[in-house]
């Protein structure tokens, strides 16, 4: 019998098998996300036009969808499809990296807070409570209103740095619950070091909620980015993002619906797909819960 079983491979294989077997909607959501993400990431290759080019601001202003411009043009005569693809690339990458930042910060802080004892523990907890009490959207509006020409990297970092409190609270709770589990005591009784207990027994057991939180978090950041850009303080024109594209068409929503509708649809579909995926991951990554349909 082959003896060398890297546990992560076995675990992930089992998880993906459960997932594929049991959750068609997750497969659909995954396919939808790929269908959206791949063209966006390959934007320069697939976009028919330059997303910022304004070929004829009078003749081509706000034209309805046609063969030449499948999703129409916006008030500045730019091609909506090209802007949708480039804007999608920006929106997705911003959401992905901002979530990466917040999950990393949140997991680190939450793990520390969950592991700490006594005074340190209560201090970390109070700080987290204080941070959680700051309304994120207002804080972001204040920051971006004050810092008007912020680079995209700064935008991502600030979105990430204001988004980790929830993850931290989640991780802290999980670590606290796990710390008193018998298998932690058992691992200690078998001679494992604190580091090994953390990496082998605590982390793998919080991966599920963290991955789920991250997946749902990406959808949340997409909406947040769109909202800020729509308010005119997120991604600045002429750079396209789904949010500022909606803004471009928002004063002529009825007569020139295609300008706002398509980025809006893109946001809805993407966020929904991330949410379905998050739920499916939650089911698939819990080996203790056999999935029975």
């Amino acid at each position, binding site marked *: *019998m082959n003896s060398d079983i890297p546990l992560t491979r076995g*675990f992930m294989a089992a998880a993906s098998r459960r997932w594929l077997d049991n959750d068609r909607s997750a497969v659909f959501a995954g396919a939808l996300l790929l269908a959206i993400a791949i063209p966006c990431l390959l934007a320069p290759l697939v976009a028919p036009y330059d997303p910022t080019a304004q070929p004829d601001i009078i003749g081509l202003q706000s034209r309805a969808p046609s063969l030449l411009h499948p999703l129409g043009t916006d008030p500045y005569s730019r091609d909506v499809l090209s802007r949708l693809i480039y804007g999608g690339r920006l929106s997705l990458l911003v959401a992905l990296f901002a979530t990466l930042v917040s999950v990393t910060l949140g997991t680190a802080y939450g793990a520390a807070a969950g592991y700490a004892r006594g005074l340190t523990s209560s201090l970390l907890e109070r700080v987290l409570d204080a941070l959680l009490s700051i309304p994120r959207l207002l804080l972001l509006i204040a920051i971006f209103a004050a810092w008007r020409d912020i680079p995209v990297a700064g935008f991502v970092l600030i979105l990430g740095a204001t988004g980790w409190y929830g993850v931290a609270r989640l991780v802290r709770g999980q670590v606290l619950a796990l710390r008193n589990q018998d*298998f932690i*005591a*058992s691992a200690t009784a078998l001679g494992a*070091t604190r580091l090994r207990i953390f990496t*082998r027994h605590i982390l793998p*057991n919080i991966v599920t909620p963290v991955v789920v939180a991250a997946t749902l978090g990406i959808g949340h950041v997409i909406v947040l980015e769109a909202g800020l850009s729509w308010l005119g303080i997120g991604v600045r024109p002429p750079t396209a993002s789904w949010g500022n594209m909606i803004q471009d068409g928002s004063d002529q929503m009825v007569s020139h619906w295609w300008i706002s509708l398509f980025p809006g649809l893109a946001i809805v579909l993407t966020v929904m797909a991330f949410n379905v995926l998050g739920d499916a991951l939650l089911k698939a990554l819990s080996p203790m*819960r056999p999935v029975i349909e």
Partner: protein
Amino acid sequence: MSEPLLSVENLRTWFHTPSGIAKSVDGVSFDIRAGETLGIVGESGCGKSVTALSLLRLIQPPGRIEAGSRIVFEGKDLVTVDEAGMRAVRGNRIAMIFQEPMSALNPVFTVGDQVAEVARVHGTGSRSDAWDRAVEMLAQTGIPSPGDRARQYPHQLSGGMRQRVLIAMALMMNPALIIADEPTTALDVTIQAQILELLADLKRRFGTAILMITHDLGVIAETAERVLVMYGGEIVEEAEVRTLFDDAHHPYTEGLMYAMPNITESRERLNVIPGTVPPPTAWPSGCRFRDRCRYSWERCEREHPPLYQIGVSHTSRCHLAEEPERRAHPHAPLVEQIGASL
């Protein structure tokens, strides 16, 4: 007699809580010889589990092993050895089997992986050697088709199987001593018998000493050679298992024996020792059992009884040892009956 494998002297494990010091283990001394099975019996709150956890220094704050306690194992005092030294003992020379076989296994790893991890923790051999040995140990504990079982997750195994996995983990490094804390409490009766038989069999084959912690006198009768009876954080009686069952001296032990349901008797109600264990923050003065004892007299309140020598290897913490005539005049029945008629 040769050197004991483990020698506990005046172990005191106190919990410094805001509502006072809980003296959960308060001056316990005993020896375990290589290859023997020592039972510790007592009801909830008597300090038996805290004693077990203290041996591996697994006591969490605010609990603390007090200065003056000694746990001498293979020439080292485990109370003072550093953390790295302690880790080298845990799982390697002394292993522990926990009560609840579901929660003592990590749900996200296969059981084979978790058994193999013990060898990895103690840095012996490669990953594949560890896996092979894990499969072998699973086979030793009577798990059918161990190669396949090793690839399963804890939730896919029954309670008895999981307990076998925990035993395999404990045996992985061939330790000199296994501490089994209520190893069969969470299992149903037929599985209990199998697990006890397995432990006895493994003990014979590997020569491992076992410290069996339980509240179940049946388990003690089945497995132990010598028994410590604990009450109120102290040892109240120590004897060979036969002596304890035939000739219990301490009134608490006596009560435990009568409280045991007996299949040959037609009894309608359960017998219980009246009262409950006092809180460990406030043990009564004198004898800690006196409030529940049917023989107690004023000396019991005044004077904390020492462990009196009753027989060759039989001690009891009761003044009756010096005033045996008082046993003839109990002021209450031995046990009370509770529960509805059957």
